[in-house]
């Protein structure tokens, strides 16, 4: 089935800064047309990894191919096939949105239409406004617009929706889905796990420079982490929790046993966020603290009835 080569291929990637090992051997592929979410806490090595792929940093060891090219040797032709939305917002405040996009469009061989991109990021009413006069979230949308103006084959989105209001975020998701429909490969990092769940095909979780899990968004963390949790208050007023693959049957049994409607009943399916927190905290040696973590670990901690 896989006719086209992967958009990104990373094998045993290492990166050291002096004695500090930021990446300790990570490997993954991003297939052509796929959206891959790279997740992990601050300082885990996400930005180091993404900047190596973008050609901004040199690796210490390992093999990297981005659109078939080693990023350390990527020329202008290679760069014209990439779209990069950096984590930090750029300045250039003294030009208008239209001027900035028109200028950047001129750098690429097959750019998108400027008006179309401005509309896609929802900045029509600000097209003639200087970028310095925009709010933080609006400037971030300019960053996204500059990332897609060159009609990239591979788009890097490094925490793209920081500072977006909920409506802007949903608008951005629609935009990404249109890019996906056009076949754009996307590498996304985000701290919003719902965003990763909405947009990603697969995810990798990186922590302390290692890839601690990788898989389809719906499977990451393993089946155990996804077992639903039923929570209710019993007749004596104490909270009870129980994991079950058959939560409806459990609830029915509860009703049958007590003969009454259990109060404050909840059936919780662990979200990607719960699973992610479980993965990240479980990979550390420290004690497990939050309920979400205990739930996501799926290892039947003692608190469960």
């Amino acid at each position: 089935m896989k006719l086209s080569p992967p958009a990104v291929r990373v094998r045993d990637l290492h990166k050291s800064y002096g004695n500090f090992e930021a990446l300790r051997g990570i490997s993954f592929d991003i297939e052509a047309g796929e959206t891959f979410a790279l997740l992990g806490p601050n300082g885990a090595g996400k930005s180091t990894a993404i900047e190596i792929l973008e050609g901004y940093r040199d690796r210490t060891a390992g093999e990297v191919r981005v659109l078939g090219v080693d990023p350390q040797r990527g020329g202008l032709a290679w760069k014209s096939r990439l779209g990069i939305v950096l984590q930090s917002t750029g300045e250039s405040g003294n030009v208008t949105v239209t001027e900035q996009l028109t200028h950047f469009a001129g750098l690429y061989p097959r750019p998108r239409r400027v008006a179309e991109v401005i509309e896609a990021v929802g900045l029509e009413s600000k097209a003639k406004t200087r970028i310095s006069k925009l709010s933080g979230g609006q400037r971030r949308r300019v960053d996204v617009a500059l990332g897609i103006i060159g009609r990239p084959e591979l788009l890097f989105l490094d925490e793209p929706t920081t500072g977006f209001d909920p409506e802007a975020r949903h608008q951005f998701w629609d935009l990404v889905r249109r890019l996906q429909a056009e076949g754009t490969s996307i590498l996304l990092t985000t701290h919003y796990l719902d965003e990763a769940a909405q947009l990603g095909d697969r995810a990798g979780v990186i922590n302390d420079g290692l890839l601690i899990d990788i898989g389809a968004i719906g499977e990451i963390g393993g089946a155990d982490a996804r077992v639903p949790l039923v929570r209710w208050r019993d007749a004596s007023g104490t909270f009870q929790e129980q994991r079950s693959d058959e939560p409806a049957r459990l609830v029915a049994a509860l009703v049958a046993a007590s003969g009454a409607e259990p109060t404050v009943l909840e059936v919780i399916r662990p979200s990607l966020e719960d699973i992610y927190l479980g993965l990240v905290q479980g990979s550390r040696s420290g004690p497990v603290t939050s309920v979400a973590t205990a739930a996501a670990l799926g290892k039947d901690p003692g608190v469960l009835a």
Partner: protein
Amino acid sequence: MSRIDANTGSAPARLGQFLRVGLSRIGYETRIYFRSADSIFFTFLFPFIMLVIFTAAFEARGKIGAAPDGTGGISVGAYYLPGMLAAGMLLSGVQNLAVDIAGEKSDGTLKRLGGTPLSPLSYFIGKIGQVLVTGIVQAALLILVAHSILGIALPDEAGKWLTFAWVFLFGVITSAFLGISLSALPRSGRSATAVVIPVVLVLQFISGVYLEFYKLPEWMQTAASVFPLKWMAQGLRGVFLPENFVNLEQNGSWDFQLVALNLAIWLLVGLGVSRLTFRWIRKNT
């Protein structure tokens, strides 16, 4: 489609693309220059302000270079015009670009550009072109103001204007490359003005921009002779001052060949340093 695909095209097509993008960057850069209050005030208008201040402050001292009986000589404004033009060349090139590029480095502009298919060649064309455009407009307005408002006489020989043209263009382009070179020095955009302005200011004081060069101690004149500003100012004095002022020069001559030689050496230094030190980003920091 008139757009050439730079990435698959032949070498001449690629060069054409670099030039086309470079030209579009000149427009973009010049627009940003004129929208920045800092560059308008500290680079573009600065020589005007200084010329007006010097003219007003030293008017009472009478004419410069007058004979003991009070005849001959020229007004303070007329004497300072070539110096202020030279200062404008230095500010438009060195100060403007050193501060501008150091700022672009620290605010992420260069990092962003480094992720696009923009060639550094096109980027440099944009910067040099911006310096040329703004420098020419600045010099033209300065000469216009000097003549029409301050009543300063201008040379009427075509040969003098030809000399002006080459000294000016050579000097501005050299200044531009020295500005790109100097932009590597500041560690942050915020420290850029603190690093660049003292350099530029000291050069202006020792090179005959604010102080009459022939009155400076010899060691200072010798020190200034190493740097290009002294030669730009001298070359422009040779254009704008009456011929008898040549006697006030160090060698009793305008030394246009030495002007050309010094600017050529600094142009090569600027080109070399720019090429060696310019990076979109500092990798691995």
